[in-house]
């Protein structure tokens, strides 16, 4: 059984919180923050990285600013220092919300999305989703289609983030979702070419207006879920 520690955290912080989180960032993260065109995006990046470092630091018993990350071909971050800790993590953000997931000894990916209008839903789904997924979305009541689209999207994205693969494999991952989130487990119909592994793919109970999912390369998982909103010091 793999225990997954999962946090949903608001990213809009006051200036003192932001300064607290900014002190934890590495030079390359600070440079990355400085490259954002909009201060809002910069501040949310700083908050997300600061919170991630705080949570990882607590798990590893190490000061947040001492952690070092490396990045895979598609930008997936991993722990470079301390090496060989066994801890794996992933983070996602959408608008002012973030998801951070930590576990030991298993590849992990998370995603969340704010549900929003999709102008070319039929075209987009036909091109990037499997035929059965496309048919299910387009036959759902109109009011439910965008939510269903993003439920599939977050499940696929969580899986592709766990494997470190990019969007190129989107159509090769076929899933089957129930009528509403968490009503039935996500069924994996086909996987992209990747090492044969048992996968757990779960939809998550998030703040209204958002959907999210987690993928873990393990036969059995237990999720410890916490939610913190803006204005609270998470770590």
């Amino acid at each position: 059984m793999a225990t997954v520690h999962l946090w949903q955290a608001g990213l809009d912080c006051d200036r003192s919180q932001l300064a607290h989180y900014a002190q934890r960032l590495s030079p390359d993260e600070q440079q990355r923050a400085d490259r954002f065109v909009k201060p809002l995006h910069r501040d949310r990046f700083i908050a997300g990285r600061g919170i991630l470092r705080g949570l990882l630091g607590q798990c590893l018993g190490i000061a947040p600013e001492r952690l070092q990350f490396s990045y895979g071909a598609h930008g997936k971050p991993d722990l470079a220092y301390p090496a060989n800790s066994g801890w794996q993590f992933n983070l996602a953000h959408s608008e002012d919300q973030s998801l951070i997931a930590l576990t030991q000894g298993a590849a992990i990916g998370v995603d969340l999305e704010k549900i929003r209008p999709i102008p070319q839903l039929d075209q987009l789904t036909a091109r990037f989703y499997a035929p059965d997924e496309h048919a299910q979305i387009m036959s759902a009541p109109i009011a439910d289609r965008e939510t269903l689209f993003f439920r599939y999207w977050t499940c696929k994205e969580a899986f592709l983030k766990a494997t470190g693969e990019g969007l190129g494999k989107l159509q090769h991952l076929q899933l089957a979702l129930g009528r509403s989130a968490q009503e039935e487990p996500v069924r994996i119909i086909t996987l992209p070419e990747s090492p044969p592994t048992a996968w757990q793919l779960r939809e998550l109970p998030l703040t209204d207006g958002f959907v999210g999912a987690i993928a873990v390369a393990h036969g059995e998982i237990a999720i410890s879920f916490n939610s913190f909103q803006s204005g609270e010091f998470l770590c």
Partner: protein
Amino acid sequence: MAITEIQIKETIFKLLKNIAPDSSPEALGQEDDVRETLGIDSYDFLNFMIGLNEEFGVEIPETDYGKLITLNDMTQYILAHAQS
């Protein structure tokens, strides 16, 4: 008449403004990571790829998405494929 780099960049800026209305793509440097710098998530990036396809008639296979990181990458990709 062949499309120019300036026309490509203007169209890229227009598409980026469509998917991220509060961004300022004109401020992008040639070698800046477009997604990172403008705070664009993967879903919006997919829409951007579809927009490039529609505007330039260039079919961009999903396997090439990873090559389109910077403004320069995108401009050169469109130039190469729109003329071939």
